[in-house]
């Protein structure tokens, strides 16, 4: 009876076995999503953060270093305190605070560490270090924040902060992760890849409660972090500090360059802020204050502010005119004030006199000779040809385009070509009378303080420049710097044309900027006034010194301080003296600048 039913049972058993094995095959062999989920479960990647590279000045003094801060961590499960009062005394924490922090830690996790006291200073840490052993469940986690011993060069150095969402999106190599620090501006951003080093990773296994269970595969996949490289900057701490002192309470820029190399000795953007404000715990609060400040301290004036070059551009006009042979040192033109306004000076003037006295009508006429060379019988076309040739020549002076300084967010300024005027007025509908403002550095022309300083360097070098830069050496790369900073840029004007220009600039001081004259140091300089439609004009001065063997070229902008001969020239002169002598022997002038009352 029912003997055949044993077959049914055997078959059923087999079917069950096959079904189980098939399902097991599916989840174990075919579907590998479980494997990935398992690793996400149990393997934790602990990032080993590298030591960020330091930044030194040109004399190997520290500009930026890493300051260790210590967070006292607690593991609630292991934490035991017998005498709470003594503990509070030792660790300088109020009892209420301790209870509050401990409760929060317990709430977060019983077995995982939470911070108990954050950002303990090095001195406090040294004090409590010995007592730590008496308290199980406590340990110290070291982090580091950027620190600036002299609190200077905030704009050039930049700052580091947590990476932003859109930066993370652009990070296609997936180097960064949420919460990582990254250079946000200045050299910190430009040399991010050099300074940051290389993150390492340790893989460790954790159990379901997140408790450490040792290294994964005995550390076979672990990588050690590689510390970032140190960078030597071209900045001169002493000069930078002095410049920032002079610019305190003012708005404007100072850029000082070593003409022979293009190395930026000092770069100041005023109003100045302490770079330490953007390092460490108070970053968020301080950043908000700075970014909402109406004087815009985070605006990188030396490379982002654009002003009309003004009178200083007359020197460039002279050089191009000389090179083209349109004018020569003996070209004498009348100071015809009906063409363009001018001030009183000997009349008529030759080129030397025109530079020395900054004669506007001279350049009105000289520029027309340069632009309208009668290469076409049509005035309009002739002007267009002339302007474009001039545009090409001017661009060689590093104007009208970004210079390529090693800082992010550089502005290029602008030098108009026929394209611009065709756009504004239409082709064939503008001529010299439309564009004559360019002759004296006004009109549709803008330069940055950095470009202006570079002009001073070109005048000093008699016709060439190196792209201004802030990096002098990178550790471990045989001191070599990016190649683009070793390329000599010729401006296309023969050196001998500069001789007379340099003499005129040296002489100009006696007319327009007597305050700038330094005993025993020959300075060549030119004042300028950048017209400001929003208020008082900006005071501008460029100079280089010593005239015979230039070691420093400088451009100074002081906003809303009017004529260049006062605020800007005085500041520039003091900077030059400071750099060349190492000290300043003119306390009166220094006081004048520090007080900052340039009105008379």
């Amino acid at each position, binding site marked *: 009876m029912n003997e055949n039913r044993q077959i049914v049972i055997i078959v059923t058993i087999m079917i069950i076995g096959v079904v*189980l094995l098939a399902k*097991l095959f599916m989840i174990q*062999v075919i579907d590998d999503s*479980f494997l990935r989920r398992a690793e996400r479960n*149990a393997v934790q990647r602990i990032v080993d953060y590298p030591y960020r590279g330091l930044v030194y000045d040109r004399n190997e003094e520290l500009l930026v270093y890493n300051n260790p801060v210590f967070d006292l961590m607690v593991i609630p499960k292991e934490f035991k305190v017998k005498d709470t009062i003594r503990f509070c005394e030792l660790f300088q924490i109020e009892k209420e605070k301790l209870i509050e922090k401990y409760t929060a830690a317990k709430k977060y996790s019983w077995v995982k560490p939470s911070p108990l006291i954050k950002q303990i200073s090095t001195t406090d840490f040294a004090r409590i270090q010995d007592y730590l052993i008496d308290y199980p469940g406590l340990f110290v986690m070291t982090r580091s924040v950027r620190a600036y011993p002299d609190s200077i060069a905030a704009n050039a150095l930049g700052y580091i902060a947590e990476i932003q969402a859109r930066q993370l999106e652009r990070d296609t190599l997936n180097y960064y992760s949420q919460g990582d620090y990254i250079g946000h501006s200045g050299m910190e951003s430009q040399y991010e890849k050099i300074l940051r080093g290389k993150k390492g990773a340790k893989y460790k296994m954790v159990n379901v409660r997140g408790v450490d269970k040792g290294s994964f595969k005995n550390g076979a996949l672990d990588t050690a972090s590689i510390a970032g490289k140190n960078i030597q900057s071209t900045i001169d701490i002493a000069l930078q500090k002095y410049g920032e002192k002079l610019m305190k309470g003012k708005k404007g820029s100072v850029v000082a360059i070593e003409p022979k190399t293009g190395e930026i000795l000092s770069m100041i953007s005023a109003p100045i802020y302490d770079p330490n404000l953007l390092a460490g715990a108070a970053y968020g609060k301080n950043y908000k204050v700075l970014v909402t400040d109406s004087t815009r301290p985070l605006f990188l004036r030396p490379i982002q502010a654009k002003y009309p070059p003004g009178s200083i551009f007359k020197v460039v006009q002279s050089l191009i005119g000389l090179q083209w042979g349109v004018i020569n040192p003996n070209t004498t033109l009348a100071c015809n004030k009906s063409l363009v306004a001018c001030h009183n000076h000997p009349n008529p003037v030759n080129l030397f006199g025109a530079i020395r006295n900054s004669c506007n009508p001279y350049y009105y006429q000289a520029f027309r000779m340069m632009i309208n060379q009668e290469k076409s019988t049509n005035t309009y076309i002739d002007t267009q040809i002339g302007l474009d040739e001039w545009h090409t020549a001017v661009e060689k002076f590093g104007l009208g385009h970004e210079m390529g300084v090693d800082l992010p967010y550089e502005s290029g300024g602008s030098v108009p070509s026929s394209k611009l005027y065709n756009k504004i007025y239409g082709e064939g509908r503008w001529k010299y009378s439309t564009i004559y403002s360019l002759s004296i550095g006004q009109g549709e022309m803008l330069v940055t303080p950095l470009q202006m300083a570079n002009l001073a360097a070109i005048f000093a070098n008699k016709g060439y420049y190196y792209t201004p830069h802030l990096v002098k050496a990178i550790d471990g790369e045989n001191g070599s710097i990016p190649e683009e900073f070793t390329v000599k840029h010729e401006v296309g004007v023969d050196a001998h044309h500069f001789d007379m220009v340099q003499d005129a600039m040296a002489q100009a001081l006696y007319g327009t900027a007597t305050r700038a004259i330094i005993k025993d140091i020959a300075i060549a300089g030119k004042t300028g006034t950048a017209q400001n439609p929003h208020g008082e004009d900006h005071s501008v001065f460029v100079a280089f010194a010593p005239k015979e063997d230039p070691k420093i070229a400088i451009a100074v902008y002081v906003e809303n301080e009017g004529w260049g001969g006062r605020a800007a020239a005085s500041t520039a002169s003091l900077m030059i003296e400071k750099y060349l002598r190492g000290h300043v022997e003119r306390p009166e002038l220094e006081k004048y600048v520090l007080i900052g009352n340039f009105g008379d």
Partner: protein
Amino acid sequence: MIGWINIYAAVYDEQAAKSIFDFSINSGKQLVWIGTAVLLITVIMVADYRLFDNLSLILYGVFLLILLLTPFIGKEINGQRAWFEIGSFRLQPGEFAKFATALALAKFIEKPSFDLSQPKYQFQALLIILIPISLIMLQPDTGTAMVYTAFFIMLYREGMPQKYYVIALLFIAVSLLSLAVENNLYIAFGVVALTVILILMGKKTWQRIVSFVLIGIAIIAYSYSLDFVVSKLPSHQQNRIMVLFNPDIDPLGVGWNVTQSKIAIGSGGFWGKGYLEGTQTKFDFVPEQHTDFIFCTLGEEFGWIGSLVVVALFVALLIRLVFLAERQKTRFSRVYGYCVISILLFHFMINISMTIGLFPVVGIPLPFFSYGGSSLWSFTILLFIFIKLDSHRIQLLGRMN
């Protein structure tokens, strides 16, 4: 006989080794359980084979009494009173009642007049099974109680009419479908279509058409009522059913067990991570991993190959038992043999199914693998009584005659 003792020994050894190294705290205890299990085997093998026959009804009665007392004097664990605590060891009477019930069933069915095609005897058999089930439900321990339904496999072999099984399977199929398919309308359409086809295919007598239509309507009604019934279940059981059909519904909450269990097994791959290399099970991602979820450790560390070996061993053991049962000379031994098969098959099927998400999570152990004295002892007793009976099958026959 030697063949499947070897199988048992192999499985047994693996369990011992795993216990010692994997669960340092539990391994010691498990060794004690294994030792005593060996002792039990010796006792069973030495004891007179007639004892089991004679004692069967007494044992059944004793265990029913214990089960009756359990809900009152048992120790409460996870809301169940299923355990007795004796010293530091805990025993689960529900586990041991299995072999007593099996013996009682064998004793009853042994009677020559016993014929499962008659409702009277069907009712008797059902009663023997239902009494322990209802007592265990009082604890309440649904998993263990469910195991007793496995005896229907034995009853099938002994002549329970086939139509009951067809109806039961149909019932299960409809239940699963209506739980799995969100919209019962689909099922209703399917049933209507099927009914129409069946009517058209066969003879078109009025009687037949009416009965088919009634069955169809009953199925549809059932399918709709099921959702209602499920909503009335205790919430933890509702969750377990929901998780079965959609494990990702709440992977950190109700789906945690199944999700983690599947991750552990699934991460084993083909060859496994290697002995003691499992990360999921070693670091406690899978709960209850030394008892009900023991298969996770195996699946993770030995991969599909390890699973294959274990599943194949179980299948081989079960089929071997079928052959052994069939060669018994007495109906008592054969019935008991099939009882053993039924229980083992049910445990094996349900336990592995739940670890890989084919069945809702119910707390029943994997025979000879899971940690726990009660289950090891009860499976040992269950199996070795049958071995003892088998070794005396000639004498048994003689006595019968």
